[in-house]
């Protein structure tokens, strides 16, 4: 403090005056306001803590309750109502993975195609393009069980008439998550700066050549993230599958077109969870842990992709 000397008396006076002025304004904040401010901040923190505690309790409960059943038999053994000690989720896991494969095959071309059309080709002033856009936003929020009704009325029976097979479940799930892919892909495509397109077009490339060779490669990380998000949603969906034939205890490995029935991981969990006996509750909890591990692996992949290939313009 010794070292600092205001150059003149006048400056010191001005600084003191300014300080007093500020103190008068800020210091006059009523005590009540200050207390209210702190209480408010505390309440906000409490709310966030409640949300985080809910998540923590959910995870902890699944791990603790499922602990006795955790082991490799979860992925190697079929489910059983008799020998619950060695029961597992093998057919359900295979069913889920098969469905996911079909879902990816369906949603990547369809979702990216729709996103390219809406971002690169569609004229936004035309009513039909706006209708498509509004429609996709709406589809993203249609309840999943309604998609189950669509699957039951249109895919299992009705026009497509596939019967209660795994492929019907996969198509239903693909339609359900398609809006997620379209919305994410559109954002990724929109993030590619226009100068890239203009440069390519100026060199004589056609619109499709520009899209195919410049825009799409640049948008791939965003698109991939969207696809993984969509797939992780598809893995956890239960309700629509109940309507399109994923049945209770499938003890054999399912096939895509097999008419003997199929199962999926969340459906199997649900079937265990509805049985009140302790051993089935344990199996349900263990299944949840298994499902969350699968999801965690996929989401880590998504984050890795995003970080590895993300481009800053």
């Amino acid at each position: 403090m010794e070292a600092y000397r205001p150059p003149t008396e006048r400056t010191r006076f001005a600084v003191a005056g300014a300080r007093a002025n500020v103190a008068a304004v800020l210091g006059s904040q009523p005590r009540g306001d200050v207390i209210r401010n702190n209480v408010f901040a505390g309440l906000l923190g409490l709310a966030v803590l409640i949300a985080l505690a809910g998540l923590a309790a959910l995870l902890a409960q699944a791990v603790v309750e499922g602990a006795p059943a955790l082991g490799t038999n979860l992925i190697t053994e079929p489910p059983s109502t008799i020998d619950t000690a060695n029961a597992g989720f093998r057919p359900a896991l295979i069913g889920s993975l098969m469905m996911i494969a079909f879902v990816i095959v369906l949603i990547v071309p369809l979702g990216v195609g729709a996103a390219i059309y809406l971002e690169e080709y569609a004229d936004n002033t035309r009513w039909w393009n706006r209708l498509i856009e509004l429609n996709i936003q709406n589809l993203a929020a249609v309840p999943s069980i309604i998609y189950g009704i669509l699957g039951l009325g249109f895919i299992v029976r009705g026009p497509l008439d596939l019967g209660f097979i795994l492929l019907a479940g996969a198509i239903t799930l693909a339609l359900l998550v398609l809006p997620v892919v379209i919305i994410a892909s559109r954002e990724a495509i929109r993030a590619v700066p226009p100068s890239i397109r203009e440069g390519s077009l100026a060199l004589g490339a056609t619109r499709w050549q520009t899209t195919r060779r410049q825009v799409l490669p640049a948008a791939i990380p965003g698109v991939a993230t969207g696809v993984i998000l969509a797939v992780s949603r598809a893995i956890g969906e239960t309700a629509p599958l109940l309507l399109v034939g994923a049945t209770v205890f499938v003890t054999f490995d399912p096939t895509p077109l097999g008419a003997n029935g199929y199962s999926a991981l969340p459906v199997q969990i649900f079937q265990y969870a509805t049985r009140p006996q302790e051993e089935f509750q344990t199996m349900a909890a263990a299944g949840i842990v298994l499902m969350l591990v699968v999801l965690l692996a996929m989401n880590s992949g998504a984050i890795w992709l995003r970080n590895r290939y993300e481009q800053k313009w």
Partner: protein
Amino acid sequence: MEATSIGAGGPGRRPRLEAPSRRWGERAIQGLLALCAVLSVVTTTAIVISLVGPTIGFFQDVSLGEFFSTEWFPTFEPPQFGVLDIVAGTVNVTLWGMLFAIPIGLAAAIYLSEYASPRVRKVIKPILEILAGIPTVAIGFFAASFVIPIVQDVWPGGFLGGAEKPFFALAAGLGIGLMIVPIIASISEDAMSAVPRGLREGAYAMGATKAKVALRVVFPAALSGIVASIVLGVSRALGETMIVVLAAGSTPNFTLNPVESIQAITSFIATTATGDIAQGSVTYESVFAAGTVLFVMTLAMNMISIRLVRRYREVYE
């Protein structure tokens, strides 16, 4: 097409920049891409057709008057189709879910947008995203095996008839609330972050505390986005199936009592359509009629929410 026609101005003097051919391949590709986009409209149409067809069949057997009354027992003999029972069930769980999710979600949004340091944000936002990604069957199991015993322990005695039932609406409501919190938090935070800094700084310059800035300046300015997030949350809650199936019971019940066992529209559909019901029977068709009611309810919510989000985007972006 615009890009090629711009250069074609002067005839003869300048080189022609127009494409040498009609580029049919380009057009075919554009057509294919448009087809992908049109698939979404086809999906919506297919949903409407698959709902409306059996619903019309349903109303040939059941009068509108009976449908919009209470007492929903489609599998009894004789069956009764008073849809208000399961509509009340859906409203019941949605109500308790939103009572939990709105304060928590909005508080989290205000915290993240106004209070949290960038470092804290970087931790909390991904955690909320994880919560948003938890499959609902897991939340339903959690509600049934963790929330129910806790509520039964802390419920004050015989209040509202006492929490005696093995499954009840409040448990499902709390599970749904947990599911909705990240939706409300993230959309509301987006809306609050879109409020221009100048508005906040103006308020601070007038000597307002942080709480006042958050509540009286940022909150009202972001209101349309906040309402949109709540409406979208309601839409999700109305359509949630697994949590309700696992935690709320399966008794059609015209009540908003949180500790009663109820049946929601979604849980009726999920439990009835999986059984071996004959295609074309009134019971089978009642699934689609209930689905139509649900679809109309959520559609209305979605349209409101989309419109509100568009409004706040227009104002500040």
